[in-house]
Every structure is written in structure tokens, then in C-alpha cells.
């Protein structure tokens, strides 16, 4: 297991390994996927921590994300600037949380942030409507959309404030054991 790679220092690789769910080899493979998105922007030498940020359009064109209805929200949630432009750290973080080794609480937290379109730490009715529209564009009528959102809030809102907090969402996730396998992007 020689350190034949020259991209990162070993402290950097250790830090990545400690903070994500990837092994060294997987981190290098993810780095090469990141670099393949824009080889002219991403240097092969990360030892002095260059400030490289790939724009959202490149991230959203990855085959794993390009047809996902939530790709924009995913990129916004995991990016540092909140606009979807991701550094390598953000990229690794995103796929680490979406990998199969991340625990349920962590995934629930980020899923909550993804569905929270207006970033107010609550999933309110308008967030639900936007989620529903992303999932079923033209098949439901206005009335049906409204009824579905009301039904969701009825069922899941435990503290009766008319919107879903993180705890309500986590309570719902606990009763949906499929969530761990569906909230998962393979790369």
C-alpha cells in the first residue's frame, strides 16, 4: 500500500478519510470523477489547496444527477456558497452522505434540507407543493396538489404548528425503513 499518488498529501487524505465514509481508493476515484467534469479547471495537484469551484451546470450534467428531479436542490444544499457551485470538499461530502454507509440520521437531516426549498428550517406547505411539482409535473390538478399537501401535513405534523420540523421529518423516516436504500446515489 505505497503512497504512489501525488495529488494529495497524506494528511489531506487522512482528513478526507476521517470525515467521509470513503476509503482512500474511493476518494481518489471520486477526485478523478470530479476532475473529468472540467479537466482544464481542476489541477492534478491539490497539495496547496487550490480554490477551485465547479459551476452548477457541470455538476448537474453528471450522469448520476442529470435526470434527478432534485439535482439543483442537492447541489445547493451541499455547496458552500448555496448556489450549487461545488468545491472538491463539497463534492466528496455530497457523495459521502448519499452513499450507502451514511447513517439514517445524517441522511434524514440532508433530505430535510433538500426538501426545504426556502431554507427556513421548516418544510411548509409551499415547500411540499414545490416537491410535489418536481415529482409529478402535469399529472395532478391544482386541487389534488393542495389536498395531497394537506394530507401530508396532517399525517406528519406532530407538534401541530402547520409545518414539518426536522423532528417531525425524522419521526416519519423512522417508520419508513426503505428510506436508507432509496436516498442513495451510486457513483
Amino acid at each position: 500500500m505505497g503512497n504512489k499518488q501525488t495529488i494529495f498529501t497524506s494528511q489531506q487524505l487522512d482528513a478526507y478519510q476521517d470525515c467521509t465514509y470513503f476509503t482512500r481508493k474511493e476518494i481518489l476515484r471520486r477526485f478523478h470523477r470530479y476532475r473529468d467534469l472540467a479537466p482544464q479547471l481542476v489541477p492534478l495537484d491539490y497539495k496547496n489547496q487550490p480554490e477551485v469551484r465547479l459551476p452548477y451546470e457541470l455538476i448537474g450534467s453528471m450522469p448520476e444527477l442529470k435526470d434527478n428531479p432534485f439535482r439543483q436542490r442537492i447541489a445547493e444544499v451541499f455547496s458552500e456558497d448555496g448556489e450549487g457551485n461545488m468545491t472538491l470538499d463539497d463534492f466528496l461530502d455530497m457523495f459521502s452522505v448519499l452513499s450507502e454507509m451514511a447513517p439514517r440520521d445524517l441522511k434524514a437531516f440532508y433530505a430535510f434540507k433538500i426538501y426545504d426549498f426556502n431554507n427556513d428550517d421548516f418544510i411548509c406547505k409551499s415547500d411540499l407543493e414545490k416537491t410535489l411539482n418536481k415529482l409529478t409535473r402535469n399529472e395532478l390538478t391544482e386541487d389534488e396538489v393542495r389536498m395531497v399537501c394537506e394530507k401530508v401535513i396532517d399525517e406528519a405534523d406532530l407538534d401541530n404548528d402547520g409545518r414539518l420540523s426536522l423532528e417531525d421529518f425524522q419521526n416519519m423516516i423512522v417508520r419508513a425503513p426503505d428510506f436508507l436504500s432509496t436516498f442513495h446515489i451510486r457513483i
Partner: protein
Amino acid sequence: MRRMSVFPQHGTALGNLGLTANEIRQETENNTSELVSDLVNLSAGARFEAIRSLHVPFNEKKTIRNRVNSVKLSKTILAADCRQQVSRSFRRFRASLASAMQHLVIWQDTLKEIGGRFGTSVLSYFLFLKWLLQFNLFSLIINFCFITIPQIVHAPNISSITGFRGLELLTGVGYFNKTVLFYGGYNGEVIVSKPAYNMQLAYFFTIAAYLVLCGVSLIYSTSRSFQKNFALETGPVSGGAWRLLCSWDFSVVNEKAIQYNKNNLAIQLKESLSERLQEKNKMSRSDRIKHLSLHLLAWLLSLGLALGSCAGIYFLGTNRELAFSFSHDPSDLGAEASTLLLPVVVSLFNLIVPLLYSLISKIESYSNPRAKIYISIVRTVILKMSILGILCFYWLSFVPTNISCWESFVGQSVYRLLIIDFIFCLLGIFFGEFLRNVIGTMCIQSLGVPEFDIARNVLDLIYGQTLAWIGIYFSPLLPVMQVLKLFIIFYLKKISLSMNCQPPKHTGRAAQIQTVFIALLFFPSFVGALSMVAFTVWSLKPSDQCGPFQGLNTPFHTIFNWTHSLPETHWVRWIFENILRSELFYYLISLIVLVITYFLWQITRGRKELIKTLREQIVNEGKDKAFLLNKLQNLQKERREMASYRPQDFDQTPHFNPNWMNTLPMDM
């Protein structure tokens, strides 16, 4: 750890409370220091697990990690620096070992592709297949190493009676009759060339060890799956909320599949909306009686069909099949081919009767589609297990008294069943999926593309695996066939899926159905096979002319002979005589297990009560939080309003107004 999960709120929630930027910074800094000191006190493994699962952006995670490391470094004395190095290199070694093990995992890319195109519920079928393949590979390796190789190397060659003809591959007799493929090819002489190798003990212990390991692995998987997927299922879960927020499959990357899933979701949401409206209409009494009688009729029909197929198989077996073994004319190809009749009939029943069941279930009406799936699974399992049961009964009660070298005969029967089942599976893929797709898209447009029926396919796999487990005692190299079969089926199903089928529409509760399948693999399937093998080993007289247990009363007597050959004071003999053979031991064990079960059951009940109380507490705390936030916001509003007045108006001290005369009313 709770504190970590709400750290930090990134300003918005704290900002709502009206704190200034400085106070927010101070609060965050306090939180971080507490977090770091918490982390420092954990063990290394738990610490990194905790860091990884923090709900903070990546840069903050790195900062926290660096701070924790520096605190750890400063706290420990210098000699512990090399302890840190050692632990770090140990962790690196473990990580590289894990990544090396990933190379051993077969089909990694294929499974990813299947998951990406068809979603997780279809992927679960292929994962189940891979799991069964692992069982069979393990069995193959240990059987080959411990039983077959010594037999081939040391024992005298048993010459074959006839030359090799093509039909052997299907029927397993003739050339294969006395080879190591079946029980009859092994003999029980203790091989006296050095090292001495007791074939009887080896045969017995290898098979026993494999079955015990399988059982342990199945129990472990079942209980883990149950715990993950069922244990927290309290309260009504009607399906609207989770369907919208938790059921979207992020791992699907194929554009057509995503569109398909979107359509499905829309249909399901509409269905659940209309269900909700229909819940109001209660069924009238006569309707309910009609539904119940339809259900009863359907159940009677299904059980009748199952009984009928069992009876047919039994009569066929006792009348026709023995014709070949009695004639024993090796060149009679016709009689040999007629032995294939029974397996073909069994496979036909296994194919046709479930289709009849699905027709029957159309006359019934179910309250929800999940009940329909579960009931069809139960009926199919009853059918398959009763067919296997009647076959086992036939093999264990009828065959030993009528045929010499009956174990080889049973092994050959199982071999034939497996091969014909494989051929029918291939035919099923061709007719059931390919042709049905062609018909559905070209000729009768209304039928549409066939759905990939996960339940039926998994039950077929379970049936095949039960046969393999039954056959292991009678034919130690049977896992070869099963491994080849599973390999080929994997690739064929994948190709057929891509070309012909579409994913199933109702994918709700995939995790629960997975648990049911794993439980089915344990309960009727493995337990049935194990009891059959145990009955054979315990009570049946092995055949006199062939096999490793010739001349004994029952195969279990090997153990008696072996322990009697050991000296009196040997610990194995002592354990065997005084513990394993005494009934008191088993009574005590049963009593202890029952008492422990009772205690654990009471603890579970207590915990359920606790969960209910905690849920109510969450609701109450939500109300408290709303009330307090409201009050706080009112106070803030008042404070802001008061701050906008002139300061003098708030001056509470008595204030002498020199113009007091002007403040008196005019008409005084």
C-alpha cells in the same frame, strides 16, 4: 450526541430570537467547545464515526476534526505519540483491507447498473440471488475439500457400469450412478494410508457443520432484517406522507425509468386520495358477507388445487417411477427417459397453479394491494412446500423399503428435479417474458409490457434452494449444479429485464417484503430441509450395498462408534455421554430459554409503553415551544415599540413641570 445533531442552526432559528450577531457567535463558539470536549472523551473508532455523522458542512467538519486532534495531542504525553502513529497506521491498514475486499465482490458494476435502471425493489431480487449463490459456493468448497477429494485420492475406483451417453446429464443415472456425484460413490472405509481419514465422520460432520452454519446465518439475517424493518412499525401508517417524502428512489438514473417512476407516483397519490374519500363509505352487511364468502371460496379452491397436485405427484411417483429401477436395464433409454416424467409434472404444477391462483384472486376484492400480495405469497408458499413435503414423504417412507442404494436414488431424483426446474425457468423466461412482451406490444396492445413479478421470482429461487438443501446429504456435489444454475439465471434475468419487462408498479414497503422473503427462506424452507436430513440421519437405516454408512443401524451410530473408540476419560466422550445424551440437559436448556424469552418479552412491552409516552411528550413539547415562541415574539414586539418612544416619556421619577399652571383646566 443529541446536541451534535442540532448544532449549529446556521443563524436562522437563533436569529429569530432577536439575538445580535455577537451573541450568535458566542453561542456557536460555546457549542463547538462543548462538542470538541465531548468528542475527545470517546474512543478513536467512536470519535471518527461521530465526526462523520455531524450535520455540518465539510469545512467545519475538518475544523472540528483538527481541533479534536490537537486537543488529543496536547493532552497525551510524548510517548503516546507513537501510540497515535500505531493506531493511525492500524486504521489505514483496515481501510486498505476493506478496499481490497471490494475486489472480491462479484457483480458490483452490474448491480449498480440494475439499480440505476430499475430501482431498489428489483435490485433486491438480484441481491437475494447473490446471497443464495454465496451459500452454495461455501457448501461446494467445503464438500469438495473434505469429502470428495479424499474419496477421489484414496479410495478404490468404482468402475462405471455403462459408457457416457448424453441422457445422463438430465437423469443423473447410468454413468453418474457410482461416481462421487451421489451418495453411492462414497464408501466408509477408514482410509488406512496415512493420514488416517475416517470417511464416515467426515461425511457426517461436514454436512452437519454446513447446515448449522447456514442456520445460524439465516437466523442472524432474519432477526436483523426484522429489527430494521418491522420493529418500529407502531401506529397507523397510511402512506401519503411517506410516499411523497421518503419513497422517491434517488438511485435510479435512467431517464425513462425516472419518467416511469414519476407516473407511478402520480397514480399512487391519486389512488390514495380517492381511497381517503372512499373510506367514508362503509360496506353494507350483505356486501361484507358476499366478500367473506368469496374469500372463503378462493381459499378452498387454492387449497384444493394444492392437495390435488400433491396427490397426483404421489400416485405418479409410486406407480411409474419405480419401473425404471426395477428393470435396471441400462440400455433401456425409454425407461430412463420416463424417469423424467415426475420432475416435469412437478415443474408444470409449480408453473401453472400459481397462474391459476392469480386468476382466482381476481374474483376477490382486497382492501389494499399489500394484502393481495401477501395472500398470494402465502398461497404459493403453501403449494410449493406441500409439493416438497409430499416428495420428501415419498422419498423417506416408500423408497427405502423398495430400492437398494436408495440414497443415490433420492440424490438422482433431486438432481433431476433441479435440472428440469432450470429448464422450465429458461422456458419461462422465453415464453413468459419475451413472447409476452412481443404479444403485448405488437398484437394485443392493451396487455402492455409485462411487469417483473418479484414475488414469483423470489419464491422460485427459494424453492430451488430448498431442493438444494434437501439434496446435499444425498448428493454432496449438488451445489455445483445450483451454482451454475444461479449464475446463468442472473445473467438471463438481467438481459430479459432490460429487453422485455418493466419494473413493478406497486413498490411500496419493499423492505418489509424483503424481510418476509428472508423469513420464508428460514422458516419453511431451511427448517424443512433440515428436518428431513435430520430424520434420515437419525432414524432411517442406510442402504447396505453403497455409501459411507453401510452396515450401521442409522448414520448417527457413527458418532456412537467413534466415541466408544475413544478412551473412557477423554473429554469428548465425557461430554457426549453425560451431557448430550442425557435428557436432563435438554430440559434445563429449554427451561432457561423459555424464562429468558419471557423476560425479553416483558422488556419489549415496557419499551413499547415508553415509546408511546415519549411520542406524547414530543407533541406536548411542540405545543410548549409554539407557546413560548409566541410569547417571546410578543415581548420583542413590545420592547421594540417601547424603544421607539421618546426617552422622557418613560422617565418614572416625579418631574416638576414649571408650567403646571397651564395644565389646569381652563374653567377652574
